[in-house]
């Protein structure tokens, strides 16, 4: 009789990294489908190219560094997909390739791979391309040539250039239903909310960051709006435009670059929300979400120090 011997525990919840990433990808599918439905083949082109580049980059880099190739954990696919979601439909193929490669290489692999990245890799790739080739990020131009049944101007650019009067004809319900110009997937607010609620319900992400991020955006926008509603936009408008929804559910919640303690997560989320509005109002960029998350990523090690000390109890058995 041969018996297996090992150290406890002898059970496991049977959840692995690949399963978590698979469900995060599933949660993005409604927004992907909506994007392809709205923008057609160009949207599909960017998504397919980004995902393929991410996977191939990981294989190449890992081979070069003589590390085991781990594409089967699904994280490269997720990075590629998320990168595509925040890019305009009109992004040229070379920019997609460069951006995704940078996400994988600078964003993740040079820090040691999955779990070691101090900043969200998707946003790192995005930020480098955004600053290096700003002309390709003009979302108003991205919608040229489409026969869209909604206002084809980018709401946040209008707000930045023309003030609050310019955005009067954006109905909030249209913004919610994704009838707005934005990143190719990030504009599909309601579909991202559906995906986000799914991963929250299944427990793949926790409620702290999404909730505090939302509260941060709404609270900070309300402060400005209540002071002067003729100059500042409605808080709900801020919540539904740009990359806020995708940031709340999919980007700020990146495991490695966000805090793991409850109160750290709450402060992190609030910080993301508050910085988002500050950058939208005072920076030169129309949308501040991704930079806000990137800045808060840098505070993560500090926020992780917010932790209740464990109670050490000696207990006597009779």
């Amino acid at each position, binding site marked *: *009789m*041969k*018996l297996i*011997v*090992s150290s*406890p525990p002898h*059970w496991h919840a049977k959840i692995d990294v690949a399963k978590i990433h698979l469900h995060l990808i599933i949660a993005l599918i409604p927004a992907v489908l909506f994007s392809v439905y709205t923008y057609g083949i160009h949207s599909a082109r960017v998504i397919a190219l980004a995902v393929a580049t991410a996977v191939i980059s990981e294989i190449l880099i890992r081979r070069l560094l003589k590390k085991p190739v781990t594409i089967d954990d699904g994280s490269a696919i997720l990075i590629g997909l998320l990168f595509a979601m925040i890019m305009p439909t009109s992004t040229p193929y070379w920019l997609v390739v460069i951006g995704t490669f940078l996400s994988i290489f600078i964003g993740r692999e040079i820090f040691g791979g*999955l779990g070691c990245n101090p900043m969200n890799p998707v946003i790192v790739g995005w930020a480098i391309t955004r600053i290096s080739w700003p002309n390709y990020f003009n979302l108003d131009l991205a919608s040229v040539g489409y026969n869209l049944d909604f206002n084809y101007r980018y709401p946040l650019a209008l707000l930045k250039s023309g003030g609050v009067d310019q955005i009067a004809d954006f109905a909030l319900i249209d913004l919610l239903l994704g009838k707005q110009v934005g990143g190719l997937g990030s504009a599909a607010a309601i579909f991202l909310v559906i995906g986000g609620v799914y991963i929250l319900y299944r427990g793949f992400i926790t409620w702290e960051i999404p909730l505090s991020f939302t509260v941060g955006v709404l609270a900070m926008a309300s402060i400005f709006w209540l002071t002067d509603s003729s100059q500042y936009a409605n808080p709900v408008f801020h919540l539904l435009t740009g990359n806020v929804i995708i940031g709340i559910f999919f980007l700020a919640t990146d495991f490695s670059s966000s805090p793991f303690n409850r109160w750290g997560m709450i402060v992190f989320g609030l910080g993301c929300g508050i910085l988002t509005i500050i950058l939208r109002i005072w920076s030169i960029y129309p949308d501040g979400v991704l930079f806000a998350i990137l800045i808060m990523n840098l505070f993560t090690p500090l926020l992780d120090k917010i932790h209740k000390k464990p109670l050490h109890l000696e*207990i006597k058995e*009779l």
Partner: protein
Amino acid sequence: MDQLALNRNDLQIIEAPEPKEVILPLKGLEGRDKLRIKIGQRLITGQVLYPGLYSSVTGIVKSIDSMSFPDDDYTVIRVEVADEDEFDEAIKAEPDFQGKTPAELLELLNRANLGISEDLADIDTVFVTAVDPDPLSLVYQQVLKEFKAELSEGFKLIKYLTSAKRVILAISEEAKELGSAAIGDVADLMLVKSQYPNGLPELLAQRIAEQDSSAKLAFIKIEKLISALTILKEGKPAIYKLVTVNTKSGVNNYRVRLGTPIKEIIKEDELNNNDKIIIGSPLRGAACFNLETPVTADIDLIYVQDTDEVYNYQNLQCINCGKCVKVCPVNLEVNLICRYAEFALFERCAELDVNACIECGLCAYYCPSGRALVQFIRLAKDEIKQQNIEQLLVTTENSTEEDQ
């Protein structure tokens, strides 16, 4: 179904057949030279074999040799069991325990193989655990159901023995009515959610300490308490243990003679190659490698895990998801501790209070990377312990040099 739910089941106790041979280990005791027996000698039930070790059967000593257990090697005494029990006269019934002093009572109980801690001073609150601490275990609720009428007598015994002011009965939420009937006005009730790890004594203690931080706590398992009452009533030593046996063919609560080898409870035809036999909880227990391992007083559960269900923990990279931190019942930063341990930075593990870990196993259970987190924590604890000893040695050496 939730795997970590604490099970509830209405079972009847099955009397396990008396063993042909028992194995009595000198656990935690040193040196077989102090043994008061030799091979071929006839033992009677309750006889002293060594200070703190008593025979659980009547029979002939067959051999004295050593055997490997999951934690260490021990000297074991094999006894061939006779048909009839003959009890040691030294143990006498004491139905009215208040007639003796607490110290005399303690001596009597320990003479009858109960193994109660000798150090009973400085205790003001005792809690009785009547909730099964681990999934699959059904022993505590069974004892509660069978002996509910005797519990209030037991609480009085504890108060008398330890001079504790307060006794608390920890019970699962589902057994609330049973509990409130049992406590009378002698004890308080603490309701525990039927979900691992809420029933672990460490966490029950934490709950009590949160309400009353000055409480000096101790606990006793309900089965031990009932054994104490039985000893006082019948004047016979504690020689049986109730064990939940969970095999592929079913779940049973057996009353087993102490020292019975596991192979007499689990038949070999119930086992396949590459199964795992777990002594104790599926999250905390040790895997058994020897079917001769005897049943001892600390075993509540024997669980046979099918080879298909055996999970192999690996050492993949931590993805920092923070699940381990969220599920940790004592609030440790498990992800950091384990990465420090991985790179041999044990002082940092100590700074993060790794010694507060109660090894409930939840972090590893939930880890999506399948990391062997409990092993890392054990490694860190062990290294810290050894380094502390080394530091102590260094300081004493230095001071002796100075003295000279």
